[in-house]
């Protein structure tokens, strides 16, 4: 199951970017953290049940605003409030995780998701507790990096 994570998450990110944003996105071979002083936004959605975990999707502010503009049908210079960017990233994370979790559920691992939450900051990192399995995937959209991170804990009675 854990081995399917990459395939399912990649499919989810592509589906959301194609359908809702019309932006190109490619998964990179390897995740290489980028050090930058540019602020980032991370959307987080958890899931609990046969599989328990959380998915973070984080992007630099430049990419986050571009995604917001596409999603909300606004011009970049119209996005001057944090609220709309937070909301957009939260909703996109919700869609990515919903897609990802649905495929996991169809394979016999039923769970429910949480509502999204947002973290904003500069040069932050999110670390799992030792019992969680962590997978980090890097995507590129134009010149910007989008990171999707899955932390998973498999319950004993699931597939």
């Amino acid at each position, binding site marked *: 199951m854990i081995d399917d994570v990459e395939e399912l998450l990649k499919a989810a990110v592509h589906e959301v970017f194609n359908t809702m944003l019309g932006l190109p996105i490619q998964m990179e071979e390897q995740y290489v953290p980028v050090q930058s002083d540019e602020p980032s936004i991370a959307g987080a959605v958890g899931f609990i049940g046969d599989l328990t975990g959380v998915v973070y999707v984080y992007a630099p502010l430049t990419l986050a605003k571009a995604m917001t503009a596409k999603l909300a049908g606004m011009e970049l210079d119209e996005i001057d409030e944090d609220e709309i960017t937070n909301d957009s990233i939260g909703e996109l994370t919700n*869609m990515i995780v*919903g897609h990802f979790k649905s495929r996991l*559920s169809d394979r016999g691992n039923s769970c429910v998701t949480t509502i999204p939450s947002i973290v904003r900051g500069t040069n932050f990192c999110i670390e799992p507790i030792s019992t969680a399995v962590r997978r980090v995937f890097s995507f590129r959209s134009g010149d910007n990096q989008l990171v999707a991170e899955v932390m998973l804990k498999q319950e004993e009675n699931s597939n």
Partner: protein
Amino acid sequence: MGRKILTVDDSKTIRMIVTRAFKDFDIDMHEAENGVEGLAVASRENPDLIILDYTMPIMDGFEMLTKLKSDPDLKSIPVIMLSAEAGRENVMKIAKQGVRDYLIKPFKEDLIVERVGRIIDLKPKGETNEKAKRYDDPLKILVVDDKPAIVDQIAAGLDDTPWKVEGTSSTGLAMDHCFKHIPDSILISVSLPENGAFTLFQMLRAGNRTKSIPVFALSVKTAAEEQARAQQVGFTGIVTKPIDFEEVKVKITRALNLDTSYKYFTQKDGMLIMKLPSNFTPSISNDIMLHLRNQVTSAVDSGLDKLIIDMSQIKTADITLIKLGLSSLQLSNELALKSSIIGSAAVSHECKNYEETKDWRFVATYADALAALGVSQTAAAA
């Protein structure tokens, strides 16, 4: 009057996307950010359709849907559920609650327009100058049932309307009929042999001249599977047997967006008069509320500045009457109209028992209402 859609989603972005999807149509959009607010807006606005998100804080979509379906005034509003979760279990859970359709996020705007268009008639902006049909127009209702007794029963049940009910007994005859005389609405028995109801429905939806006709499935109350299938394929609604004809009239009125305002509103002597009928019910109150704002603002635009609320036919004050009275007076105050209420001594006395209505002043007759509004009988007659 354009259609009303209520979008309920905790994401402001999704609400913007849904609103934007219908920008080229004559749609009055309303929004709510959780189930509690959604129920309040639905009660107030009586939308033609609700687009409802599944996962929300405070009250989620599933709970809101359950409450909608248990409210007699709201249960017939069709609901399209939005969810980010496409899992089989989730979809089955949603479908069992009686949603008309569901959409999985992410979705294209065209798709939501298409799905909504299967349920309500979407008119492009600017194309609504065509005169709206009225409840008292001689509408043509086609009933497709292989039991003549059912056709006769429906004709008898609707004989207090000017609507003409005709019947056919098969899919083929129904299509021939539609080719010659396009009906305004169609009721099809789901027990037609060989899946006839669903075949006929697909044929109607495929025809240019018939694709927008509201089509209702006629089904016995206990045939849950057939009803679920009818909802899934896109029938406008379900009419269960034994038939409640008042409900049928409401469903057809709503589906065809029939103008019923003339039943309750008139302009006379330079005033707007809202007259409540003797058979005043919550359903009639909803009907009046649908037209209230338009009628009052239209009156103000015409230069009228007085409103008479005629409750003389009402025998007893109840919560429905009070709510309507409060809404009318609030709107009247907003638009700076002078108002007067005609009502019986009994209703006046009952209203004194409620905090919200204890200050209402009733007059006994129309002449008294004119006097209260400072309009002389001579001026009125002129």
